[in-house]
């Protein structure tokens, strides 16, 4: 019987099978941020176990609230900062170098096909875009990961999502994944890895694949995975060129993690995107999805462009193309958070930041900020935000606030009119 990508990764990392289908696997990397790691650190200290299994395999960032907004968030940063210093964790990113973890770590070349990664963050599934197994875990799993470099999972079961057809202009990876979550439901992939395949995925950039995999968790998935291909190798080439003679050699090595043709999947969903239109959420669950056109006219108070879902350069380019030469509606507050300093600098060089600022957007430093309602654009009770983030839970961006998830193009169009708007009225597409 053939194996899926996740099964192959598990097989090559297996440490123990304590009972049943529980597999304890060796970790290639443990990622940390300042919200969930401090509790792990203080607990390890209290247990007299303040150690790390391998400082070179731990990557840490202060990203959720940065610069600190109050004494409590300052303390969270301080705990992580001192811990990184104490244990010689070199890959630690603080003010000036920091950005949203799931955008920053791939950009630094910390993810490789076949890797196993955990982080105390549910959107760790993003890194599966590189053909890695990357899963969000709680603090205890994180603690054991930091201490021992292992984590326990059920043997991975995989669901296949085949995306066929061709995206029409104005429709993006975000629209695809919202549509897929609408079909699967918030529980549709629980305890399973989602393998995204098909011609649409093959044609996608790494940025778009990350947008897809980022939201696997919103359908309950443990991880989203895309098979490594030449696009993956091209992205990683600056980091791997000493390891491989040619790109072809790298691809051949990584192809050992491709799924076998006779691999077994628990389910298969085929989505033809030929007729897909821009999508948005309308309720408090990410599977409550409708075409943007059906929501058009709904008033918003704020538009947020950023996050690990859609705060990458590709997203900023798309939004800027809609905003160029125009101004946001007077009743709307526009907030842009480029996801990393590198993205910010690229956007500056390309003139995108100027477009956003001329359009009336506030441009913040790279941070999670408003995405989780902790800083930089928290909503007031009764306010509505059109957002390129991944979660529309009740109160996510502030108590009593409501979030409509959508693509950067739709969000930008909405900023211009003050009501939910399909970007095609500005671009003539879709």
């Amino acid at each position, binding site marked *: 019987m053939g194996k899926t990508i996740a099964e192959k990764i598990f097989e090559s990392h297996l440490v123990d099978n304590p009972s049943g289908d529980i597999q304890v696997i060796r970790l290639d990397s443990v990622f940390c941020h300042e919200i969930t790691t401090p509790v792990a650190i203080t607990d390890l200290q209290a247990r007299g176990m303040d150690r790390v299994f391998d400082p070179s395999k731990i990557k840490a960032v202060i990203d959720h609230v940065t610069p600190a907004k109050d004494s409590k968030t300052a303390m969270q940063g301080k705990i992580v900062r001192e811990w990184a210093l104490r244990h010689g964790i070199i890959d630690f990113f603080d003010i000036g170098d920091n950005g949203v973890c799931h955008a920053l770590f791939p950009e630094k070349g910390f993810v490789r096909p076949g890797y196993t990664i955990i982080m105390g963050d549910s959107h760790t599934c993003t890194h599966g875009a590189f053909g890695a197994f990357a899963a969000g875990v709680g603090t205890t799993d994180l603690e054991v990961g930091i*201490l021992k470099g292992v984590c326990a999972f059920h043997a991975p079961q995989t669901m296949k999502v085949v995306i066929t057809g061709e995206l029409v202009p104005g429709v993006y990876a975000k629209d695809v994944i919202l549509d897929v979550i609408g079909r699967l439901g918030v529980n549709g992939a629980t305890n399973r890895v989602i393998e995204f395949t098909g011609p649409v995925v093959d044609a996608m950039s790494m940025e778009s694949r990350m947008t897809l995999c980022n939201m696997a968790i919103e359908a309950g998935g443990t991880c989203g995975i895309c098979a490594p291909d030449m696009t993956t190798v091209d992205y990683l080439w600056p980091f791997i060129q000493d390891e491989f003679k040619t790109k072809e050699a790298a691809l051949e090595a990584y192809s050992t993690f491709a799924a076998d043709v006779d691999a077994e999947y628990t389910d298969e969903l085929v989505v033809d995107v030929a007729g897909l239109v821009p999508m948005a959420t309308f309720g408090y669950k990410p599977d409550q999805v409708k075409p943007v056109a059906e929501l058009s006219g709904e008033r918003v108070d704020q538009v947020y462009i950023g996050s690990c879902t859609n705060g990458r350069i590709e997203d900023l380019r798309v939004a800027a193309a809609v905003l160029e030469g125009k101004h946001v509606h007077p009743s709307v507050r526009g907030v842009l958070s480029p996801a990393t300093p590198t993205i910010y600098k690229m956007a500056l060089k390309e003139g995108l930041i100027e477009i956003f600022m001329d359009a009336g957007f506030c441009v913040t430093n790279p941070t999670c900020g408003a995405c989780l309602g902790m800083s930089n654009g928290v909503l007031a009770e009764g306010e509505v935000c059109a957002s390129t983030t991944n979660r529309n839970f009740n109160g*996510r961006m502030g108590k009593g606030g409501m979030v409509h998830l959508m693509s950067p193009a739709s969000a930008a169009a909405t900023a211009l009119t003050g009501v939910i708007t399909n970007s095609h009225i500005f671009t003539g597409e879709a």
Partner: protein
Amino acid sequence: MKSFNGKVLFLDRSDINTDEIIPARYLTEITKEALTPYLLEDLELAGFDAKRDIAPAGAVMTRANFGCGSSREHAPWAFEMNAMNIVIGESFARIFKQNMFNCGMMAVELAPAVIDDLMARFSGRETELSTDLATGVFRFTAGDESLEVPFEISEFDRALVEAGGWVGYADTHY
């Protein structure tokens, strides 16, 4: 090992997410104790009143996909700090369930029909749960009505409960 007995709090809804269990605005706390007053603060559910219902409860019964959303272990901790060490439901989000057992707590699945029956009989009444982990039996008691329901947890989850959680287990094994 923790106690898995106590008054049952019925949360008769599916997809209760971790933001409803413990809102993100409290994630700046760095001790578990600080979370105590905020459990289920944002949950809006007919008949549920956090102030009235949480303190007397020792167990939770709910529907499907409980604990979906973020990976925050603050969710199990908020329950733990309120002396609720067990959640019984139709199904759980993976990370939440793992976090519960990692803390030496329990997230136990029962068939939807069984949950239906238990909700119908006991929801809205003062109901006491007592758990016999050795034989795998729950006993629900309200007034003079009492019902025994068998349950199963995996061998590994049981080992975690007995070790008081995953740190203790991993430290002796790896």
